């Protein structure tokens, strides 16, 4: 019985395969050139930008999108993706550009140097820095907390139900670069790293702490709009030196200052016309990015409204980005 039944199934499978090939014109399919089905719905030129989950990245994309649409006549699609998958998407041409990269040496080697499917797009103009922060209201009361050597003294005050008997070091999204677990161990700190699991959760928790003026210690990064709402002071870790974070097990130093980078899909970089030229020239300052980020996160403007308002007030800045 079973044997006779398998025949129609096999036939069906074969027919599907034939139909598949026929439908798509027999040839080889190019996995590197596939656009979104929603793109170009009205026959316009489209640029696809990847957005990372933090508001700073949203701000870059919002302004780029606004100018591409209003000044250069493109249609812009945005896709929200985590950092590492974004590299992958960039190499395949699913997105055309990443506007804010915090340093992924492994991906850079693979895609920029070995495969040459991704091209460098230059500095964003913003320098990023990761660190440990305590709220300024707490740092003012206890100035010595800002040195890592005194952290153990305050472990009790940073304790939460989640961290058990130790102090809580609040960490964020799994997509972030972090050595915190190793740091706590190697610096011999009486702390427990608690992963908030997403940036949204971490921000929400920080704001709840701040509302009650509670002490907390958190992994956080600059530039970030939250500093305007919850002033925070950095805790000094052993100074960063080139290569001190090379071995993830032995790392015992602070995080570096990273000039944030732009990356473009290689094909887009060479044939992307005005859009590619514009994105390469896009370069602004931390303050500018924060202005836009705050409008999005605090005033709850849509990214496009925020970008529009910024563009109106800063024409001198963005004029120079436009291809002449």
């Amino acid at each position: 019985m079973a044997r006779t039944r398998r025949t129609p199934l096999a036939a069906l499978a074969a027919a599907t395969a034939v139909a598949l090939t026929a439908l798509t014109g027999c040839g080889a399919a190019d996995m590197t050139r596939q656009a979104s089905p929603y793109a170009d719905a009205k026959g316009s030129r489209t640029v696809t930008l990847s957005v990372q989950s933090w508001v700073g990245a949203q701000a870059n994309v919002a302004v780029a999108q606004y100018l591409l649409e209003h000044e250069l006549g493109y249609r812009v699609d945005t896709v929200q993706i985590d950092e590492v998958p974004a590299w992958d998407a960039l190499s395949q041409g699913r997105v055309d550009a990443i506007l804010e990269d915090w340093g992924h040496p492994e991906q850079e080697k693979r895609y920029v140097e070995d495969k040459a499917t991704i091209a460098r797009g230059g500095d964003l103009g913003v320098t990023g820095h990761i660190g440990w922060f305590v709220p300024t209201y707490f740092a003012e009361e206890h100035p010595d907390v800002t040195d890592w050597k005194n952290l153990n003294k305050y472990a009790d005050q940073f304790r939460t139900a989640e961290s058990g008997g130790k102090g809580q070091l609040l960490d964020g999204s799994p997509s972030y670069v972090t050595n915190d677990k190793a740091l706590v161990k190697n610096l011999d700190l009486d702390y427990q790293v608690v992963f908030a699991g997403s940036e949204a959760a971490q921000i929400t928790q920080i704001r709840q702490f701040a509302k009650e003026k509670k002490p907390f210690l958190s992994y956080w990064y600059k530039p970030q709009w939250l500093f305007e709402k919850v002033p925070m002071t950095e805790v000094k870790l052993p100074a960063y030196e080139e290569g001190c974070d090379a071995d993830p097990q032995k790392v015992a130093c602070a995080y570096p200052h990273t000039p944030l980078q732009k990356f473009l899909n290689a094909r887009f970089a060479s044939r992307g016309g005005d859009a590619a030229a514009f994105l390469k020239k896009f370069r602004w300052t931390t303050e500018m990015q924060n202005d836009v980020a705050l409008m999005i996160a605090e005033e709850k403007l849509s990214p496009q409204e925020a970008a529009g308002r910024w563009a109106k007030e800063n024409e001198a800045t963005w004029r120079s980005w436009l291809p002449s």
Partner: protein
Amino acid sequence: MTATVTPAPPSPTTTPGPTPPTGTGTGVLRALTRHRGRLVVACAAVALFLCSLFLGTGDWPASLSVDLSGPLGHASDWIIDNRDGHPLFLYFLGHVSNIVVVSVRAVYLVLLALGWAGVTTAAALVAWRVAGVRLALTSLAAFAVCGLLGMWVPTMQTLALMVVAVAASVLLGGLLGLAAGLSDRMHRILRPVLDTMQVLPAFAYLLPVVLVFGIGVPAAVLATVVYAAPPMARLTALGLRDADAGVVEAATSLGATGRQRLLTARLPLARKELLLGVNQSIMMALGMAVIASVIGAGGLGDRVYQALASVDVGAALAAGVPIVLLAVVLDRVTAAAGERIGETPAGRSGLGWAVAAVATAAVALAGRLSDRLSWPDGWTLDIAEPVNKAVDWMTAHLYSGVPVVGGTADWAGRFTTWVLNPLRDGLQWLPWWAVLLTIGVLALLIGTWRTAATAVLAMAAIGVLGVWDPALDTLSQVLAAVAVTLLLGFALGVAAARSTRLGHALRPVLDVFQTMPQFVYLIPVVALFGVGRAPAVAAAVVYALPAVVRITAQGVRAVDAAALESSRSMGATGRQQLFQVQLPLARPALLLAVNQGVVLVLAVVVIGGLVGGGALGYDAVFGLAQGDLATGLVAGAAIVCLGLVLDRVTQPTRRHDLAGKGA
């Protein structure tokens, strides 16, 4: 509403697996088990006591585990290096990907061409033809709200993606179900495959799918199909297997060939199951709409996800509501279609459809001529601000310092300290063999040797995968969440069964809880309970509660009226009736509720990882975020194993099933 029980993403156990009549061997087996039970418990207790005398570490021994990061890392490198050149991609996967893109685009363009007026009219008319005037008005209102919230275009994108994903799921599920329905061997082979497809957390297979297809719509559609096809397959198989033997026999005696029997007797007889399968596939696919946004599916899910990045609950809700509305409309229309099968006289319905088609075309044309294709900008309603204000107020007033009862943060703290911590530490402190032993004994008491073996092997697999500790952490959270869910769910369910008014009032609330994308309540739970395992438990409870309430209410309500009447005539009070008649008689339903609670709670473990639940949920998210196939897949596999363990330990009805199958 008919579909009340079904919109829950059905677990392997709700979607009815065939429950054949108890085989002859079962009676003996059951008697054996019952007598064996106490003996086993006694032995286990003694063994545990003896073993605890020389307590070692609780950890799974490193020598017994396998590190998969090497091979899985190689696999992902291979895909990345060969994606652009290997024939497998050039001549097969690439085409699959292209077909998906072309189909989604085609549907999307049609929807855009119809314009908002055309789409809304079409939806209302289809609902009218299939399910009557009331549902027509509901769908009219639903689509209007999508537009009003300023979500028209994302709604159409999601709809286009859904149409293609559901069509593919129904096709694939139908074929698998056909195979399983016709061949016993296929049925046996497919069951564990379908179980795994449903229990494996979507996050775990998003990464492999992304590696192969890249970010975007093709990957999203395929991930959705993996998730949405199993119920279709199960129900198709069920329909074919349950087809009235008499009719099939008659067809055979008339000399029908196998194919003729299938097409003229078995498939038509299975129509109801097939439609229920379609309904279930739709609901599952919508459940994936938001998760798929993590890999660039676009549409409503992407709006929810982006709103979260700026911690904007209001905006997330504005994009979440259309998802709920789509789910409600699609669910009720397909459910009504299933019920109405065979009711409508064929002649009239053809005319009705023609009228509907003409009306839609006319409206679409009118829209096109008057250049009103896209939703008018002025006709939108901003709900984000009031919602955010409400959330702010809630968290500001409930978080802490509420007199007498304490704030939610205090509850969360106490819950963590007094329930979650002891539970986790206890489980992790137990020696690994004691855990295996306990699970084996529990499964044996409730099921058979076979279920016990499955449970123990699944738990051991977790150890072998090298995630013993995080798995026990996750287990402790699941157990705590299930306990809370059952406590609340039974109470609400019983209350709803006894008071019709409460039942009616609860229904829409449960609908919303069940279909609202979980990402929407990620921020509120953190705002109320802080970061950690407590909000993870809260999110799980919110998600699993509706199913438990519904199954309980239905079970209690379905208790034989005669039994209730006779107890009343004997002078039983309401309380006595409840505890001595209704609850005992509703036992099977309550057990099903327990099982559903477990399965659904487990489905939210990954969301728990996003709010600080840590453990396996965090690993699954980490795997996707860092492109780390090993971490993500191993965590996913461990969650599947936990699911197996918990299912086997909470599903006594399985015994008949297994025994019956053996017989």
